[in-house]
C-alpha cells in the first residue's frame, strides 16, 4: 500500500489558521456581548479548561489514572489563600509559587507510588485527593480555617492601584493563562518528552526496553500537571476571594476526568470541548438541575458507545477504548 500524500498541505494550514483566528476572535469579543453572569460562566469554563489541560498531561498524554487531581488544585488555591491573607503577598506573585507548591506536593506524594499501574494508581490518587481535603477540614496548624476555609483573599494587583476585580478582567486573565498553557503544551506534545509520554501510554514495557526512563517521565507528567492545576487554584482563589474544602471534593476530580475522556485523551481541542460541556451544560439546563446526574450519566454512556475516542480525538496515536487493530487502514499521512 502506498502512503497517502497529504494534498495541498498549505491550504489546510491556512484554513486551520483562519479557524484558530476566528476562535480567538470570538473569545476576545465575547465579553462585550454577554452579561456579567455569562462572562462568569465563561470564566469557570476557563478554569475547567485549565484543570482539564493539567489532567490531560497525566491522563491523556501518559495514560495514568489520576482521580485525585482536585488535591493539587486545592494545594494551589490554599497556598495562594494562606500566603496572601497571612503575609499579604500579591496574588500574581503567588501564581508561580502556587504552581511550585502543587508541583512539589505532587513530587513528594507521587514518587513512592509512581510504579503502580492502572486502577491501583487510581485508588491511590483518589485517596490522596481525599486526604488533602480532610486535612484542610481538620485545620492543621490553624492555617486552613477548617470547614469554613480562608476568607478575604485579595484581587490580583497589576500595580499602580490597578486591580483585576471585574468579571471581564478575570475572564481575560484566565483565558490568557489558558492560551499560554496551550501554546506550551503544543510544544511539549511535539517534543522528546511528549513522544516519550505517548510511548509509555501505548506500551510501557516496549518503551522501557527501548531506553525511555519510564519512572521519571511519569513523575514529570504528575509534576507538570499538578503545577498547572496549582495555577488554576491560584486564579480560582482570587476570583472567589475565599477558599473552602468543599470546592475540592472527589466530584471535582471526577469532572476533570470526564473533561479529558469526553474530549479525547491527549487532545487539546478535545479538552476545551470537554470543559465547555462540563461547565456550560449545567448552566444551560439549570431548570432541570435535579436530573443533572441522570443526564450526565446517560451522556457519558452514549459517548462511550458511539465516540469511544472522545469528541475530538488526537489525530496521531489517539487512544481508543476499543482495539485499534479493529479499525485498520488508518494513515496519518
Amino acid at each position, binding site marked *: *500500500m502506498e502512503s497517502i500524500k497529504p494534498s495541498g498541505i498549505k491550504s489546510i494550514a491556512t484554513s486551520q489558521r483562519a479557524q484558530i483566528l476566528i476562535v480567538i476572535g470570538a473569545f476576545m469579543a465575547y465579553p462585550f456581548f454577554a452579561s456579567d453572569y455569562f462572562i462568569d460562566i465563561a470564566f469557570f469554563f476557563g478554569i475547567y479548561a485549565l484543570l482539564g489541560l493539567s489532567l490531560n498531561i497525566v491522563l491523556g498524554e501518559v495514560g495514568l489514572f489520576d482521580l485525585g487531581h482536585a488535591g493539587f488544585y486545592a494545594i494551589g488555591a490554599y497556598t495562594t489563600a494562606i500566603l496572601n491573607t497571612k503575609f499579604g503577598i500579591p496574588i500574581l506573585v503567588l501564581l508561580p509559587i502556587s504552581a511550585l507548591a502543587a508541583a512539589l506536593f505532587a513530587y513528594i506524594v507521587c514518587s513512592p507510588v509512581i510504579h503502580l499501574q492502572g486502577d491501583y494508581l487510581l485508588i491511590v490518587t483518589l485517596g490522596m485527593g481525599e486526604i488533602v481535603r480532610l486535612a484542610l477540614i481538620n485545620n492543621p496548624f490553624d492555617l486552613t480555617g477548617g470547614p469554613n476555609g480562608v476568607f478575604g483573599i485579595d484581587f490580583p494587583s497589576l500595580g499602580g492601584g490597578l486591580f483585576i476585580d471585574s468579571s471581564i478582567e478575570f475572564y481575560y486573565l484566565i483565558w490568557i493563562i489558558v492560551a499560554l498553557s496551550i501554546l506550551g503544551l503544543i510544544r511539549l506534545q511535539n517534543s522528546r518528552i511528549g513522544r516519550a509520554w505517548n510511548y509509555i501510554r501505548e506500551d510501557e514495557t516496549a518503551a522501557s526496553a*527501548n531506553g525511555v526512563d519510564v519512572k521519571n517521565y511519569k513523575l514529570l507528567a504528575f509534576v507538570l500537571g499538578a503545577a498547572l492545576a496549582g495555577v488554576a487554584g491560584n486564579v480560582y482563589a482570587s476570583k472567589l476571594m475565599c477558599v473552602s474544602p468543599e470546592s475540592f471534593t472527589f466530584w471535582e476530580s471526577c469532572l476533570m476526568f470526564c473533561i479529558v475522556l469526553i474530549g479525547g485523551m491527549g487532545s487539546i481541542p478535545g479538552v476545551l470541548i470537554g470543559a465547555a460541556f462540563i461547565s456550560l451544560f449545567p448552566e444551560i439546563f439549570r431548570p432541570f438541575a435535579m436530573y443533572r446526574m441522570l443526564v450526565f450519566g446517560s451522556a457519558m454512556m452514549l459517548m462511550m458507545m458511539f465516540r469511544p475516542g472522545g469528541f475530538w480525538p488526537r489525530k496521531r496515536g489517539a487512544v481508543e477504548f476499543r482495539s485499534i487493530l479493529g479499525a485498520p487502514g488508518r494513515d496519518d499521512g
Partner: protein
Amino acid sequence: MPPLLNIENLHIAYGAIQALKGVSLTLEEGEIVTVLGANGAGKSTLMEAISGLVPIRKGSITFGGEVLNKKPAYEIVVRGISLSPEGRRVFPTLTVDENLNLGAYTRRSRKREVLEAKERVFTLFPILKERNRQLAGTLSGGEQQMLAIGRALMSSPRILLLDEPSLGLAPILVKQIFDIIREINQQGTSILLVEQNAHKALGVARRGYVLENGTISTAGSSAELKSDPKVQEAYLGGSALKQKHPPVPSPD
C-alpha cells in the same frame, strides 16, 4: 578474556513464585546463543531481567565487566543491550518510522547516527522502507516482527536480545527472520535468542542452553544439544522423528 555477558546464579521471583532459580550462562562477543525451553520455563523472565525490566533477587548479570543488577532499563539500553520483546509490541497507532525513532530514543539528537542506524535497518528489512509511513498496526505479523527487531537495532546494541522472534509466523517468514538473524550476527552483533522453535534456533546458534522450571537443565554446543536424546524428546519432536531419521534430525 571474560565473556561479554556473564550471568551467575540468577534468581528472579514474582512475589512467592520463583521464576528463575539460579541460572548461569555466558555470551561471548560475536556469538549467537540460544535458550530453549517450554512455556513457563522462565525464558522471557530471563530476557526481562537482562534488560532491567524485572528486579533481581539474587545473583549477578555482568556486561563487559560491569554489574547491571541495579541499573534501570533505560541505562542498560544506553550501555548496549537491546531487547526485541516477545509478542513484538510495536506501537500500532504510530507509523513504522515513528516506531523506529523510539528505538533510537537513547541517542537523543545525534541525527547522523540515527539516520545511519535506520539505513542499516532498511537494508536488512527493505519492506520496512516501503511501509515507512504506514501505521504499524496495519502491518502483517511478519512485518511487525521485522519492525520489532529493527526497532531494537536502532540503538546499535552490542547485544541483541530476541524473545521468540518466530512466534506466530508462517514457516516461510520464520526462515526469512532466521536468515536475517544470522546476517545481523555477521555484522558484529552478539545475539541471545530465546525460542520454542528449537530446530531453527539450534540451526543458527553456536551454543545453547535448555531452561526447565527456572533452572538450566542442559547446556552445550548446538550439535551436542541436537543429538542429546532428552532434548530431542522434549523439543525436537522426539520419537516420531527418530523413527523417520534414526540418527540425528537435521535442521533445515
